[in-house]
């Protein structure tokens, strides 16, 4: 039987969800009997091929995030919003209370200890969006996996359910926003 193909990425996130994914420790070995990883920080594959499941950590804060997210949606049969940032913007979205200019000036112009203050504008830098968005505002999302981060048990549960062809559910004790 061919393996289920999974791709993962972190957009405007902290990679905490990926770290939590790896917290499944030796259970990863059993999981890898059934799945293989495509594009992911874990494989360093740079672009997403056709996949069964895409795990998206982080919200959408810049133009590159939009590009990557659309690439995942185009290639993944199932897309899962993983963690608080993907689901509602999370901590990065706390900048939404302020204008983008206010945020940039606070950090790069008025920040403590800044020398030669200037707002970065290298052409290589992805353009920042005006606000940070949850991913379902940009693409269609199939499932949510809440948590900051979701526990390794929660990852195993949703992947286990999907591998067995069931609608994924979490027991109440695994539902957390923190």
């Amino acid at each position, binding site marked *: 039987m061919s393996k289920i193909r999974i791709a993962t990425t972190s957009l405007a996130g902290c990679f905490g969800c990926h770290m939590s994914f790896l917290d499944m420790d030796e259970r990863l070995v059993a999981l890898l009997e059934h799945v293989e990883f495509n594009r992911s920080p874990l494989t360093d594959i740079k672009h997403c091929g056709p996949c069964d499941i895409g795990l998206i950590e982080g919200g959408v804060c810049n133009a590159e995030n939009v590009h990557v997210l659309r690439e995942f949606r185009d290639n993944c049969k199932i897309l899962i*919003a993983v963690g*608080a940032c993907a*689901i*509602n*913007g*999370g*901590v990065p*979205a*706390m900048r*939404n*209370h302020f204008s983008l200019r206010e945020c940039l000036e606070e950090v790069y112009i008025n920040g403590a200890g800044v020398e030669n203050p200037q707002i970065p504008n290298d052409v290589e830098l992805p353009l920042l969006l005006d606000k940070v968005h*949850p991913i*379902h505002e940009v693409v269609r*999302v*199939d*499932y*949510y*996996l*809440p948590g*900051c981060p979701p526990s390794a048990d929660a990852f195993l549960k*949703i992947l286990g359910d999907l591998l067995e062809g069931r*609608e*994924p*559910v*979490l*027991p*109440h004790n695994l*539902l*957390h*926003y*923190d």
Partner: protein
Amino acid sequence: MSADTTQNPITQNTITIDGQEIPFVAGQTIMDAALAAGVYIPHLCHKPGLTPHGSCKLCVVDIASRSVSSHNSDRRVQAKFQVVADSRSVSACTMPAVAGQQISNNTPALNEVRKTITQMLFIEGNHICPSCEKCGDCTLQAMAYHLGMLDGHFPQFLQRRAVDASHPTVMLDRDRCILCELCVRASREVDGKNVFAIAGRGINAHLIVNSASGKLVDSDLETSDMAAHICPVGAILIKEHGYEVPIGRRTFDLHQVGEIGSEEIILTKVRHADE
């Protein structure tokens, strides 16, 4: 609420919630009777001993009209947890219990409405659970878990609300205030003070402090006041004690807000009517 004095004292005073017969004494609300019988009706702004407020609307229940409740099939319909077509929705915390009421409480339809109300509370304020020191002890968060809420659904309001850190031992973070007025009532009715009030209307409603400067430090709030401890969310916090109980060991890390609710949470992103 005044008692229903028209009741026949000979008939046993009971109401029926989701098919379960529950006794009550004259003067009790539906919520009072349910709490006494160990039946959980979701609520955020209610606290026994304080005047019912009826503002959070999470305790919404359906009362079947008299004509329907006398119908033979009603009990069977109730047992299937369906919404009785000919019914009206009321707040259980303010509605007096009246003998013979046929009440629907734990139904999929009512819990869906409650989930939407909870989502609206989340997006109106600024509830960033991972950055809140009340996380795990927050009744709003526990309610959202109880109702299986996965996202806020609605666009965030992103209101900028003032923080009042002036008081030496009590912190007021209006970002998380849900306007339940528990602190207002506790201060007025239990502490014998009048520290808090809600000012403004609609989206401009906000918690104010009764002092000349409007700051907590100039009010007569003390750490021992009930008003300083009653906040169901992270709006009123006692300083320097926020992390004495570690995350993961807190009230709602170990318990659920209601006794019921051991069913599983479906993770499918549901398409709302407005999408």
